[in-house]
Structures are given as structure tokens and as C-alpha cells.
């Protein structure tokens, strides 16, 4: 079967420093895959290479069989490769409703449209409200300024913007980072509620979340793939315990 997302020998150098080294991955459609690794293992650089925010020094990225290595970020999004950000990338001056509407309009390819007010796009507005409603945003929160929302809500909006794009492949960059334990359930629910045919790549620090969610795990260390396998196998792997889990229990 053709992989939904695959890389071949993906490499990125910064000056003399090799941040990602010869990473080869293959995610089947509907996969629940996690990438873990200690700080500085190259996880964020890997995400940036997959989404096209960075160009690789060597190697390729394939999306559903198509070589997208040369495509810019926005063109990959149009092919339904969508990401969330480790640090919220929101629109402080827009309300959540406006922001999600913007994402939906973009998905439908309507943002070149200049002759019809946003307010006249009733179906899109209704979909934006329905999406936010499914994430338990109250009507008041939908219309508030984004900067006035609590951090947990902002984190959820970060994910809502990605969901609005109806991804076929979704990259979640530490979705629970910084969310207080009480509110992280909402984030987890949103991720768990994704349709089964969506391919998900989870970059995470929180081992709890990884072992609950992932069906397959890749461990990165110093930019290279250290191990890959089912969660139980990874949990037993001595090398992984040494570089990562061991470090986590000590630290």
C-alpha cells in the first residue's frame, strides 16, 4: 500500500551542524504515529522539513506518492498536509470565529475573492461555528478577541485551525505543551475524535500521551532515527531507555 506520508534520507544541515540526519519514515494511511526524542533531537526541524517551512539539504518528502520536496508550505497544505505549532501561532486581533472562518475560506480556495463580503458566506460561517461548538467554545468565546482567551482555549483554537482544513495528514507538534492538566483532556479528545482515515504524526514530549495514542513510535536522537516499532517494543528497547526514557526518569 502507498504511504500517506513518507521521507527518504531526509537531511538538514545548519552550517556545520546536522540537525536531521538521513531520516526515512513511512506512515500508512490512517496511521497513529509518534516521533519522540530528547530535546535537541531534531523533532521541530523534522516537522519544518515535512511541512516545507525549511528545505532539506538532502532527501525527499512524499505525500500520497507525490514528491512534494520542492513545493512550498502553502502548496503542501493544499494537498491536505496540515500542522499545528508547538508554540501557538494565532491571530491576536481576530476572534476565534474569524480565524476559523479564514482557515475554511482558505481551504475552499476563496481568499482571492474580493467582491463578496465574508458575512455573505453563510455556509462557511455556520461550519466555523459548528467546529468551534464541537470543541465546546461558548458563543461569547467565539466572538472574543483571541488575545483575551485563556491559554488552554488558545491551545484548542490552534488545533481548531488545523482541523478546519480537513487534513488527510495531520502533524501535531506537542499539542499538549503548556496546557494545565485539567484542560489537556479537551485537547486529547479533539485528537482522538479525528476520523480514522486521517493520518496523524504526533511529535510529543509527554510519554503518557504518546503511549496512550500512538500505534507506532519512532525515536530520534541527535537527528537520526534510533529505533522504530510498536510502543511495547520501544518501551523495552534498551538503547531507547538509555538515551531517552532513562534521561526522563532521572531528570
Amino acid at each position, binding site marked *: 500500500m502507498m504511504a500517506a506520508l513518507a521521507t527518504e534520507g531526509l537531511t538538514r544541515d545548519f552550517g556545520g551542524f546536522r540537525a536531521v540526519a538521513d531520516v526515512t519514515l513511512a506512515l500508512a494511511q490512517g496511521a497513529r504515529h509518534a516521533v519522540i526524542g530528547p530535546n535537541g533531537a531534531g523533532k521541530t526541524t523534522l516537522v519544518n522539513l515535512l*511541512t*516545507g*517551512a525549511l528545505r532539506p539539504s538532502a532527501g525527499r518528502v512524499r505525500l500520497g506518492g507525490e514528491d512534494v520536496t520542492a513545493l*512550498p*508550505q*502553502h*502548496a503542501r*497544505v*493544499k494537498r491536505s498536509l*496540515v*500542522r499545528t*505549532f508547538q508554540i501557538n*501561532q*494565532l*491571530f*491576536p*486581533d*481576530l476572534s476565534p470565529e*474569524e*480565524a476559523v*472562518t*479564514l*482557515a475554511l*475560506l*482558505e*481551504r475552499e480556495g*476563496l*481568499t*482571492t*475573492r*474580493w*467582491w*463578496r*463580503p*465574508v*458575512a455573505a*458566506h453563510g455556509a462557511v460561517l455556520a461550519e466555523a461555528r459548528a467546529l468551534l461548538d464541537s470543541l465546546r467554545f461558548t458563543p461569547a468565546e467565539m466572538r472574543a478577541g483571541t488575545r483575551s482567551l485563556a491559554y488552554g482555549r488558545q491551545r484548542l483554537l490552534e488545533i481548531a*485551525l488545523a482541523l478546519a*482544513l480537513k487534513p488527510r495528514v495531520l502533524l501535531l507538534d506537542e499539542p499538549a505543551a503548556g496546557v494545565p492538566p485539567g484542560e489537556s483532556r479537551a485537547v486529547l479528545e479533539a485528537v482522538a475524535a479525528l476520523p480514522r482515515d486521517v493520518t496523524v504524526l504526533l511529535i510529543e514530549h509527554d510519554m503518557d500521551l504518546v503511549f496512550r495514542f500512538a500505534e507506532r513510535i519512532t525515536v530520534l536522537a541527535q537527528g537520526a532515527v534510533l529505533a522504530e516499532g510498536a510502543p511495547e517494543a520501544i518501551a523495552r528497547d534498551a538503547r531507547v531507555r538509555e538515551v531517552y526514557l532513562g534521561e526522563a526518569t532521572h531528570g
Partner: protein
Amino acid sequence: MRLALEAGFWLLALASYWLLPDQLPLLSQIAIGALFVLSLDLLVGYAGVLTLGHAAFFGLGAYAAGILAQQGWGEPLSGLLLAAVLSALLGLLTAPLVLRGGDLPALMVTLGLSLMLGEAANKLPGLTGGADGLLGVEIWPIFGLFRFDLYGHTAFFYSLAVLFLLFLLARLITAAPFGLALRGIRGNARRMPALGTPVRARLVAVYALAAAYAGVAGALLAQTTQFVSLDVLSFQRSAEGLLMLVLGGLGALYGAMIGAAAFTFAHHVLSEMSPLFWQFWIGLALVALALAGRGGLLGLGAAALRRWRA
């Protein structure tokens, strides 16, 4: 409520014809300034692109319309069209140089380009009249009916009508998905590609649009005063445009126009006392506005309204 306020604004603009009958040239100047600031608002206020050289487009439009009329084709509307097209082309041509990422390159490249154009106009007196200005601009009656008169009656209605029509267009554009995408780019240019927006293409489009608006404003000045001087391309004009914009309030079309009106009135009153006085106060106003932060007059008004209601 909102519609009533908007209608009131435009009725007042129209009524100024009867309220200040001796000040028609000043009123035309306000309308032209408002159009220029509208153009800056699209670029700076909505899309968040900084420029120190927007006068380049204003000046190009002014010279295009002026030279067209001087060479024997004085039909005003085709003059506006020519100015819009040429300015938009210059915008398209220079956008890749300006939009290379980051505020500093944008500031410096726009400044450099406008200075280049100003110096070129200065050094080509055969075409532009150089430091003496472009003389012999004769504009035909609008639609062959309304002649430009000495007192500025026609000029007033002409400027106001063009401003109103282009305002309606800007209002449409900013309320449409395209406008929302611009606000998105200004709010977070990093997120937009992750939503699938080709940021560069959107910015090039709005840059050319703003250039065309500024070109039309310049053409209006050339046609209504039947004269073009080098100061249409000056740094002063670019800087004053920014000031009017910030004075009125960024990212609000009415703010842009109110800023232009307030600025031009203040200029008229203060510089009659002394030009130095004016320069000093304008400097002080800039410093104060920058320190106080955004919102401008429109923001102050809205805050006062909220307090009054509370």
C-alpha cells in the same frame, strides 16, 4: 446604527461644500489626501507592509496624468485610468524587491525607490519640468459637461466623487475574504502558509492595488490644480501619509479619512501662523502618537463612546 453613522459621514463631507464655500481648494485637497491615506491603510493598516516611499506612486500618477494632459489629451477620466495602470505596474514591478521579508528591507527599499524616482524627475526637466514644475496642464470638462472653474467647484465634486467610489471599492475588498486574509497576514504571517495561503502572492496583489489608489490620488491633484511639482514625490509626503494614517487609526477606512481631514485642517491653520510652528507641532504629535500607541482619533472616539455608554 453603523449605516447611519456612515451616511452621516458622507453627508457631512458633501455639506462641507455649503459650510465652507471659501475653502473649496482645501476641501479638495482633503479628499485627495484621504484617498492617498486610504491607499496606505490598505497596505500598512490591513496587510502590515511598511513603506517609507509611498509618494513614489502618488508622484507617478500625478506626472502621468499631468503629462498626458500637457501633451494634448486632457480628458480627465482616462488620465485617472492611465495613472492607476502605470502605478499598479510600478507596484507589480517593485513588489518582489520590497517584499523580501522583514520590515527593515521593506522600509529601506521603498525609501530608496521613491528617492530614485524623485531624483529622476528632478533630472529630466524636458519631461517633468524639473524644479519649475509641470506647466501647461489643461484638463477638459468632465464628460464634456463640467468645466474645471477657478473657484474649485468642479474640482471639489470631482475629488469627492472619486474618493467615494474608491472608498466603496476598498470597503468591499476589506470586508471580503481577500481582506480577511490580509488581516491574517498582518496578524501572523507565519501561520498563513500553514493555512494554505500563498502569502507573497496576496501581498503583491495588495501592493499593486495600493499603488493604483495612490496613483489615482496623485492624478487627482495634478488635474484639479492643473500643475505638478517635484514635491509629489517627496519623502515628506510619504511621511505625512503615515502620520495621517496613524492619527486616524490603522486598519480602519474611516480612520484613514478622518486622519487626513484632521491633519490637513491642522496644517492649514497652524502653518498660516508659521511654517516652523507647524513642523514643530507635527513632530511633537508624531512622538506622542508613537509613545501612546495605536488607535488614533477613531480609537479615542470609540473609547469615549464606550465610557459614555457605560
